[in-house]
């Protein structure tokens, strides 16, 4: 084995690595490339722009449509993430630490929801939200996002919680802290990295959603960027929106790329522990 771990093996792995990187990056680079092209060179089919411009970005930030959608996206995703992580943490703590009736039912239900066909909820939610007057509002999107993010949060967090040395909590309780105090003062700080990882995963999930975003909104009031993109017509009606769409696409991709760059290790561990180890 050790002999094989030589230059040749390294080259072979290196080539495979390059293949993976190219496979992953090409569509991203392509849309970035389009976003920097001038209208004249937009249709030349070249992978690298011949003339670079920032006009597309200027255009989208001048239109109210995109800025509004960006604000909606950020606001809705952040609020949904915050609530889902708090509720998920409470449930995950109980699941990983406490003994109570109905625990396995809860785990089963959240598993079912993780696999739930979201389109099955579009018709009833559309009608329910119209009746409750939350159709086309922030809460109208936040609620379904929380629901579908909760299973992810619960699984990931209970995996994290199980890795925490709980003797510390016992010690705190022996010193007279209540269970709640022990949780807040001792466990929560230790769980912070797990909470953070979960928050990133949940945020990515909410940021990504398209089906609910186009089904449960009808105006700019609450439409998020992915939904707005598919209705984007450019600054004026007669303009080809390709450049603008690409610029908008790049803007909502940047946060994800940053997350992935900085927190790669955590995202991987969060996904794998949450999904397989339960």
């Amino acid at each position, binding site marked *: 084995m050790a002999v094989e771990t030589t230059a040749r093996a390294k080259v072979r792995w290196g080539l495979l690595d390059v293949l993976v990187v190219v496979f992953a990056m090409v569509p991203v680079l392509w849309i970035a490339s389009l976003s920097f092209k001038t209208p004249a060179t937009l249709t030349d089919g070249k*992978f690298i722009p011949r003339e670079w411009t920032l006009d597309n970005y200027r255009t989208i930030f001048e239109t109210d449509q995109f800025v509004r959608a960006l604000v909606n996206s950020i606001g809705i995703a952040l609020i949904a993430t915050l609530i889902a992580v708090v*509720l998920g943490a409470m449930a995950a*703590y109980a699941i990983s630490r406490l003994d109570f009736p109905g625990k396995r039912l809860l785990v089963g239900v959240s598993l079912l929801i993780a696999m739930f066909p979201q389109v*099955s909820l579009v018709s009833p939610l559309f009608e329910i939200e119209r009746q409750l007057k939350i159709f086309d509002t922030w809460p109208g999107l936040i609620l379904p996002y929380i629901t579908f993010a909760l299973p992810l949060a619960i699984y990931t967090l209970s995996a994290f919680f199980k890795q925490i040395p709980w003797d510390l909590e016992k010690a705190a309780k022996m010193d007279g802290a209540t269970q709640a105090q022990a949780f807040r003062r001792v466990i929560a700080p230790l769980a912070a990295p797990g909470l953070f990882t979960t928050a990133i995963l949940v945020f990515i999930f909410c940021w990504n959603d398209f089906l609910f975003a186009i089904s449960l909104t009808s105006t700019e009031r609450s439409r998020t960027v992915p939904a707005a993109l598919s209705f984007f017509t450019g600054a004026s009606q007669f303009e080809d929106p390709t450049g603008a769409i690409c610029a908008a696409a790049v803007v909502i991709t940047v946060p994800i790329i940053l997350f992935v760059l900085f927190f790669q290790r955590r995202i991987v561990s969060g996904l794998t522990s949450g999904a397989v180890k339960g």
Partner: protein
Amino acid sequence: MSINATPTGADVAADETSGSTGQRATVPTQRGSRRKSPLSENKKAERKLGLLLCAPAALVMVAVTAYPIIYSFWLSLQRYDLRFPDQREFIGLENYVTVLSNEFWWTAFGVTTLITVVTVAVELVLGMGLAIIMHRTLVGRGLVRTSALIPYGIVTVVAAFSWRYAWTPGTGYLADLFSDGAPLTERASALAIIMLAEIWKTTPFMALLLMAGLALVPEDLLKAASTDGATAWQKFTKVMLPVMKPAILVALLFRTLDAFRVFDNIFVLTAGGNETSSVSMLAYNNLLRGLNLGIGSTMSVLIFITVAIIAFVFVKLFGTAAPGSDDSERR
């Protein structure tokens, strides 16, 4: 749920019968009472706290899924078109007859099944390769893992636009790959592109799940196999695959159900033209283009039932262990 029995399963059930309903347990909050107090006191407090902590999450999940799906079933039994709200009436299973005897439904169902089967099969192979690369690579492991996460994280709609422009004649770098015009406007090539987009986007997720399975393969076992003269392929099929089986099944289950929901890519790439609609696309169109709540809900219910059947088959026939159901107590 009761997919796998856990060692504590019996205890939980016993606790349930012994009555969590009656007593409002007097929570012992004063210091000192904790260690000495009878076990049952502590148990009650623990139980109460457990239920309390889970209640909000459980409430939200039930309110936003269980209630709407029941409501959806109720709507599916009615003629209910928002353009003609006066004609709303109870019509029993008539909507089901309409949908199930409609060729658009079956075309969409066929497209969805095709996309699901092909993408999941390809992703399993590619994902396994990618998982092994991410797990074993000698150089640039961080770089590989980071790039593999990008398709997972990127917004599906953005990726779909990227593929759409890549295949648009004149604009895209791929459009001239096959000489005959616009690939997105022909059914076969459009479906192939939709699948390509799906595979690109979700292979990394599959790979990550499989990588978690790979991590469970004991290194000693592989070494022993090597000593016994096993080839790389033999090691893979005889040692790695059996150990990874649970992880593979979970990954397959998740990806199958996920693939069955395919929507975003189709919406952007073809908008369902040329018979490339998936069932999700069709349900969406009936609801938001047609404003037909009755038919839309019927489709919702049918999709839900299909997904339930797929999940059931995986769990019962293949013995997929539901994540979280089996080892919640073990560690």
